[in-house]
């Protein structure tokens, strides 16, 4: 890890370094070119100033008077004053033959002889001239010459030396090393600017004399060179040579001995030096920061991986079937969210485990019940219970009346296989669809109900049509209404399972399983209500549970439409099971969705508390209890229930429909909320 990070730092530094060197080339060329232009500009400005000084002085009356007198001391004195005033380094006055008349640099020397500078010769020939003045000793001056028409004098020259100080100033302005040269000797013992360079003069002279620089060509008047690469002192440099005072006419005609030039020089290392420093600092910081970053990274990673490790451990234990492994604390970050999600998943799994265990029990019960049913009439307990809880006015002996027994084929297609239930409306058979090779359920209705009542039959058909619209996994599908001639039968989805009343006969359900059943009942009701179908007779025997624990609510709307209830109601009696009947139904009023909510509440109460809220020896007492008595507090029956779940049950069981959940949807949500809070301790 450390090596990787260190390697990355080094690699990126190296890459940037290489890139720097490749970028440095054009920058270097631009730098020396810019330096050349700056030097040219500075030289031109200096020459302008020198030119102006000579013109001023040449036209000055007192000065001209001195010159006219030809008095050297006076002239020199005056020139000395002007040097201070104008900032020139020297003045020279030459006579018409080009001989020295006065030279402020040699005030005591009487007659030094011919001046012999191209600038002076140009001025003698054609008036004002400017350019370079090269001394025999190699000193280089910028010079401007102006004729004086007074006395023996002819030309006044103002001089400014190109010395180390000025070269240094230019170097600072251009950021490039500058060396000025002339042809005096092997580029002369004097190389203005050389003192500013970190090179010995001798080596510098060699460097500047490098043939590739083209100095000779510059001095021969061939102009300057483009930037080149030269090796100097073991280092690579960008360099160019250019003539001094290139913009002025005089140098073009000047003798080679009176030409000068300069070399602009910049080392590649110098160009990238600043960057090397930055990069060095970056490298250092990078190398210092890397261990810290790695350390912090490891710490951070540990903070993430430790809870994940705990999670992994918990998952492995869950795979082994143990859902109680400790989980990491729930923090605000992603790991916390994961932990929280995993915790709720564990709760669900635990519930599922409970449900599975319970389903296993139920399934074995169901199959044993089915076996019993196929061999003989349904299990005594079931039948007895059904009879107990069904309408009181069932005429004895009627339920199994009607067509056939096991083996009978209805409409040449549905072979009755086993009797799986019997109730007030008729008998329920498991049948085989010989055409589709499927199991179906057939409820053969009590023959008397619809016979001779075409209006009721039509309404029954209407109800079936309605309920067929409800398509939901928790609602038993109704397929057909079969006309059996003497009676009618309803063809329904077959559920390989049992009914909730048989399950409840075993006692209270495990909490998780109970909630799962209840929640599916609420879902099924919600789906039916959404289609405008009200059950009106919800009770455990109408709630089927298959081997996977899936709930199917059956007999939607059938109670009233079957006509049986209608007749009974008219007679002032009450149909069906009073144990699950809403107060408004008990009082003979119209039932709506909230009546289903109430009945579901009774069922849930029984699921979670192990017994119904109202139970009595006779139906009338039960009905009165529904109307008048408050349900016993659920927590009295099941102390493990949390108050929120108890409140949920009591709200579903409110006497006044307006105080209940307004819909099955609200009820489902209420159940979810109560269950989410834990439901049971």
């Amino acid at each position, binding site marked *: 890890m450390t090596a990787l990070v260190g390697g990355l730092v080094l690699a990126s530094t190296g890459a940037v370094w290489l890139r720097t060197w490749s970028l440095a080339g054009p920058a270097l060329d631009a730098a020396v070119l810019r330096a050349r232009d700056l030097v040219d500009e500075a030289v031109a400005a200096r020459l302008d100033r020198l030119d102006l000084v000579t013109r*001023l*002085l040449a*036209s*000055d*009356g*007192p*000065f001209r*008077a*001195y010159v006219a*007198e030809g*008095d050297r*001391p*006076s002239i020199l*004195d*005056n020139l000395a*004053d*002007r040097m201070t*005033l104008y900032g020139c380094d020297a003045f020279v006055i030459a006579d018409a033959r080009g001989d020295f008349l006065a030279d402020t640099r040699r005030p005591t020397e009487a007659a030094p002889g011919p001046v012999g500078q191209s600038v002076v010769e140009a001025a003698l020939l054609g008036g004002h001239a400017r350019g370079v003045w090269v001394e025999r000793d190699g000193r280089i001056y910028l010079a401007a010459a102006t004729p004086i028409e007074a006395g023996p004098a002819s030309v006044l020259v103002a001089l400014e030396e190109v010395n180390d100080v000025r070269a240094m100033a230019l170097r600072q302005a251009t950021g490039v090393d500058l060396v000025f040269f002339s042809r005096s000797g092997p580029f002369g013992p004097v190389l203005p600017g050389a003192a500013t360079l970190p090179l010995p003069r001798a080596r510098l002279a060699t460097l500047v004399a490098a043939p590739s620089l083209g100095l000779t060509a510059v001095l021969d008047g061939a102009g300057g060179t483009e930037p080149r690469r030269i090796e100097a002192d073991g280092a690579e440099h960008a360099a160019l040579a250019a003539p001094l005072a290139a913009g002025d006419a005089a140098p073009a005609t000047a003798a080679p001995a009176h030409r000068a030039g300069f070399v602009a020089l910049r080392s590649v290392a110098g160009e990238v030096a600043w960057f090397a420093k930055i990069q060095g600092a970056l490298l250092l910081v990078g190398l210092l920061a890397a261990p810290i970053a790695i350390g912090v990274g490891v710490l951070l990673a540990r903070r993430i991986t430790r809870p994940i490790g705990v999670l992994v451990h918990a998952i492995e234990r869950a795979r082994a079937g143990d859902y109680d492994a400790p989980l990491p604390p729930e923090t605000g970050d992603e790991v916390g969210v994961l932990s929280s999600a995993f915790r709720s998943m564990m709760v669900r799994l635990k519930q599922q485990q409970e449900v599975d265990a319970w389903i296993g029990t139920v399934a074995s019960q169901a199959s044993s019940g089915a076996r019993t049913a196929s061999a003989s009439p349904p299990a005594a307990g079931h039948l007895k219970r059904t009879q107990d809880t069904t309408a009181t006015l069932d005429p004895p002996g009627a339920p199994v009346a009607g067509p056939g027994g096991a083996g009978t084929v209805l409409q040449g297609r549905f072979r009755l296989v086993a009797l799986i239930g019997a109730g007030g409306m008729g008998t329920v058979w498991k049948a085989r669809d010989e055409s589709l090779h499927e199991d179906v359920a057939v409820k053969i209705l009590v023959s008397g109900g619809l016979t001779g009542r075409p209006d009721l039959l039509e309404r029954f058909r209407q109800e079936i049509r309605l309920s067929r619209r409800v398509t939901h996994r928790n609602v038993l599908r109704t397929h057909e209404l079969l006309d059996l001639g003497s009676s009618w039968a309803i063809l329904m989805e077959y559920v390989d399972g049992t009914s909730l009343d048989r399950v409840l006969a075993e006692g209270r359900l495990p909490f998780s399983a109970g909630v799962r059943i209840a929640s599916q009942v609420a879902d099924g009701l919600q789906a039916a209500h959404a289609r405008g179908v009200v059950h009106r007779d919800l009770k455990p025997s109408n709630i089927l549970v298959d081997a996977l624990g899936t709930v199917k609510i059956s007999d939607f709307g059938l109670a009233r439409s079957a006509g049986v209830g209608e007749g009974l109601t008219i007679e002032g009696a009450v149909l069906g099971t009073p144990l699950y009947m809403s107060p408004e139904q008990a009082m003979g009023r119209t039932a709506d969705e909230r009546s289903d909510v109430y009945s579901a509440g009774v069922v849930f109460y029984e699921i979670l508390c192990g017994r119904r809220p109202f139970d009595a020896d006779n139906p009338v007492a039960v009905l009165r209890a529904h109307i008048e008595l408050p349900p016993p507090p659920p927590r009295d029956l099941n102390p493990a229930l949390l108050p929120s779940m108890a409140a949920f049950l009591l709200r579903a069981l409110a006497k006044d429909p307006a105080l209940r959940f307004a819909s099955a949807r609200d009820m489902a949500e209420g159940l979810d909320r109560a269950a989410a809070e834990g439901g049971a301790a």
Partner: protein
Amino acid sequence: MRISGFAARLGTALAIEVVAAGMAPMTRAATVAGVVAIVERDGARGDPSSAVVWIEGAPGPPPSPERAAITMRGKAFEPAVLSLPVGSRLAFPNADPILHNVFSVSADNQFDLGLYPRGPGREVVLRSPGIVRVFCNVHPQMEALVVVTPGRWVARPAADGRFSISDVPDGRYTVRVWHERGGSGESQVELTAGNVPEVEIRLDASAWRRRPHLDKNGRPYQGAQGATRDPY
């Protein structure tokens, strides 16, 4: 103020003594004494020794002309201030190794001695009273002032500003003072027997600014910094 008042009183006391000392043999004549104060910028005391004091209107024979010289040395006039009776002959010897050109454009005493080398130089007769400014046409920094006075009663104050002029006949006169930076000032005196007037003249030099002078052709000097940089 208090101090200068004290100085004035002290001066008066001294003058009385001086007058008392010199009075005995003379009759009908008196000594005028006093003090010249030059007030420079910020109230500093200026040098009064470059001032000239004279008395106007006193009767008596005109002064006899003198011969004097102002030497040019080191591109400067020596002395820079001189007072001479009218009609005096003033020479300008050149002690420098270079040529100088002495001239003046002052009112009735204009002259141009031309360019001349080291040597006794050339001279001029100052025929009119007044202030004569003398320059060199080559070197703008060279300046001399000659006060050409009409009478004989002239004095130059000492460094402390004190001056005295003796043998002045009784009468009412004007005491006049001229100073390069302070300009001119005057004071009335009445000389009678036993009366020794004490004159105090204060010249304000605080507003004075150096203004570059022109050459003999009336043009600015080219080399003069003040002239080339700020002709106004």
